[in-house]
């Protein structure tokens, strides 16, 4: 089983549900706070056309998202990283909007055994 599965649950009013191993619980609040800060950092860097900063931050987020089981975060960060390499402002802007929205909507459910092993 994958570490987490993200799914749009119609009954949860647009909330995204992510299942995360219960042992991660102490670290998840900081993980979420840091990802939101990074969205702000990337947004500011995009405004300054600083694609290198966007790329670096997105690269770190891609790995962190995957490690924690937030597959959607990892996927969106990968798209932003690739777009930053090519200087694609519009793609970055759109993906940051999606990422910001996702981080606001996501609900975490802690499972006793969701570590993927």
């Amino acid at each position, binding site marked *: 089983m994958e570490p987490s599965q993200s799914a749009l649950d119609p009954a949860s009013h647009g909330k995204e549900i992510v299942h995360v191993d219960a042992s991660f619980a102490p670290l998840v609040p900081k993980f979420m706070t840091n990802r939101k800060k990074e969205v702000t950092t990337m947004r500011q860097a995009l405004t300054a056309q600083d694609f290198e900063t966007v790329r670096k931050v997105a690269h770190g987020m891609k790995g962190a998202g*995957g*490690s924690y089981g937030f597959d959607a975060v990892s996927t969106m960060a990968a798209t932003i990283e690739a777009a930053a390499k090519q200087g694609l402002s519009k793609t970055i802007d759109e993906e940051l909007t999606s990422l910001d929205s996702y981080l606001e909507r996501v609900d975490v459910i802690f499972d006793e055994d969701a*570590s*993927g*092993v």
Partner: protein
Amino acid sequence: MRKQKEQEKKNGVVLLIEDEQDTADLIRLHLEKSGMAVVHARDGRQAVNIMEDIAPPRAVLLDLVVPYLNGFELLKAIRTKPGWEQVPVMVVSGDSDKGDIERMLREGANDYIVKSWGVGVIHHRLRQMLEQVSKGQAA
């Protein structure tokens, strides 16, 4: 501190080279829960400094992209440092570029894990790698 020392004595040290703090915290949490002691370097320079200060660890978890020295340079530093030549190295990367994977394995890494596989898989493969090394040493 006392607990860390006890774990080092019992299970050895894992050197974790990872610049993303949340990822490092998660890997550390997982490994310490299974009784391993973790020494963490946040970038390439710090990793090299730590390598001067500690005995060869039980394993190295090496991020491919870290500031100052990249994973390839760090792997070379590990493989050429006296006493560290046989230390098992697992590359843990956000990237899955086939060329990078093949080059890392060719240049002496024992395994290559993509972070999106999750920390549980990282931990599982680390245990497998250590078991294989133990069997190799016993043979």
